[in-house]
């Protein structure tokens, strides 16, 4: 990853719709070769941020640029650097795979002698070359997704913006999709950045860096490891029975912030530094309350734990 090559910059980016501050001061510095994950609850501002970067919306305030081109006054040049895939992308069901790509390629300005070799290369990359003459309407959901990705890549964009691209997509396709994205940014001299918004934490975990959005701002940013470290030693796994009783007893412990069910066990989030004391206390209070204590131990925190923790925190605007 060449961090001298910042492809996506945003500084104090804002977008308001009347009183609603959908994007409320976002800063971004995304380098070539980076996969940046944008996560956050529905309504946090992820899609609006993407639409600002694509130039579909004008910012109310602040700046953003793609490969050095401002999205405010050089929007055509900025757009030419971008490939965009959203959940609502549409394909022409009656056209073949190849005809669909051709349509998108020519619409984006690829010349007659360019679109064909370029399209075949891309279809090969996503694994759809064999199906180039099949009508798009006859593709499986997963293959449609790959065609969407191919269409976004046909112009060799330097920045790929993916807005929840794998919602509702089966795990095999999702895995294939991710392998393609990672290959794209890992190739030597690829010079491509990817910004992906996703509600799936296992996908966020595959990004190089994650920005957690809340109320239009990025409140935490870091690598998956850095984010997970926020709750280092603060997640406990508790086993025993009956679970509803254990849940109650744990919730009443002053050192426990959050309790949730996880299959046949409970996960507890405890206050910083209180892991051991909480375990010792539960060893007493659970049997005292009529329950059976089988064991408790700290476990690795997940991005989901961090997401829920950050969502629950009172957020003070800067």
């Amino acid at each position, binding site marked *: 990853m060449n961090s001298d090559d910042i492809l996506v910059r945003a500084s104090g980016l804002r977008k308001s719709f009347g009183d609603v501050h959908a994007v409320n001061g976002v800063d971004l510095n995304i380098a070539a070769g980076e996969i940046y994950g944008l*996560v956050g609850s*529905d309504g946090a501002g992820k899609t609006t941020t993407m639409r600002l970067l694509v130039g579909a919306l004008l910012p109310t305030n602040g700046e953003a640029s793609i490969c050095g081109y401002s999205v405010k006054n050089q929007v055509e040049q900025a757009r030419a650097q971008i490939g965009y895939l959203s959940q609502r992308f549409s394909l022409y069901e009656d056209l073949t795979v190849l005809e669909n790509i051709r349509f998108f390629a020519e619409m984006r300005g690829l010349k007659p002698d360019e679109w064909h070799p370029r399209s075949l290369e891309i279809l090969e990359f996503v694994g759809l070359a064999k199906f180039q003459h099949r009508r798009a309407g006859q593709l499986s959901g997963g293959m449609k997704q790959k065609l969407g990705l191919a269409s976004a890549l046909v112009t060799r964009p330097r920045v790929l913006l993916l807005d929840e691209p794998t919602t509702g997509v089966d795990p095999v396709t999702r895995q294939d999709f991710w392998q393609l994205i990672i290959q794209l940014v890992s190739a030597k001299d690829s010079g491509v950045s990817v910004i992906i918004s996703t*509600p799936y*934490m296992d996908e966020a975990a595959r990004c190089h860096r994650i920005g957690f959005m809340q109320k239009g701002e990025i409140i935490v940013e870091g690598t998956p490891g850095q984010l997970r470290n926020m709750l280092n030693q603060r997640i406990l796994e508790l086993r025993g029975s009956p679970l509803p009783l254990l849940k109650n007893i744990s919730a009443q412990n002053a050192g426990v912030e959050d309790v949730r069910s996880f*299959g*046949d066990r409970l996960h507890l989030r405890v206050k910083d530094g209180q892991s051991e004391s909480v375990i010792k206390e539960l060893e007493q209070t659970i049997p005292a309350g009529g329950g059976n204590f089988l064991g408790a131990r700290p476990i690795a925190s997940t991005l*989901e734990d961090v997401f829920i923790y950050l969502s629950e925190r009172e957020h003070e605007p800067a």
Partner: protein
Amino acid sequence: MNLPEPVIVVDHLTRRFGDFVAVNAITFEVQPGEIIGYLGPNGSGKTTTFRMLLGLLTPSEGNASVLGYDVYRQAEQVRARVGYMSQKFAIYDDLTVWENLQFYGGVYGITDKARIEETAALVGLADQRTVLTRDLSVGWRQRLALGIALVHNPRLLFLDEPTSGVDPTARRAFWDLIYGLAETGVTILVTTHYMDEAEYCHRVAMMRDGNLLALDTPLALKDLFIPGKVWELYAEPLLNGLHALADLPGVIRSSLSGDHLRVIAESRLSENELKNALEQANVVLTSIQLGEPTLEDVFLNLARN
């Protein structure tokens, strides 16, 4: 001690479409209050199985009973007692939350206002009864869809990808509801494409090509279907490392995971052998450690072999 009656009993259940065997003599049982995850690639026979269990499709061979009723001969009774939640269900955007619950309640013969109120409260929508459905966020829409499936007080629920596209907080709130229901003895079958979510289930069923490959706890499935170790390696250049390891005998699967490699290898393969393979390909290894197998690993193994 009286053993509880199983809620679902499936015995060599089979469904053919012409020569194509969509569901191939599957057999299993589900106990009351269990949350069963039902997974499988597209085309594995999941949906066909569900449709038979819901009394919507006639089996070609074999039997199944749901809540004590035979799915073929007593389909009406099955359908009246089972709740089904699917994204493909029409929730009327022009109606309010209350009106949607009332409408679907009516479909099941529930006209009792108290029951509708109870259902709204159960899914957390008591304060939003007059909100127009189109104004609900994705997370709340899911809750309404669940409410609609619950209005007639079913003891068995089928949830078809219930939290697709929903963020973790909303998903967790939804699952708190599901766990609450299971604690009252409601049995739940859920399909999902989100492997992390499958880990929340008590047991998970894996289907492929019409066959039921396994039905067991997430832990047991990982033990059974991950025949080796999971390694996480940080190496440069990444793609060269990926290919070098993919070719190494004993490696079951080699894949990219963001900024590192995830390799599933037979237990006999040592750390040193992996290191050597990378060295020979001029790949620099910065760190290597053992990782935890996930249900995604299980799924991919089954889906591809």
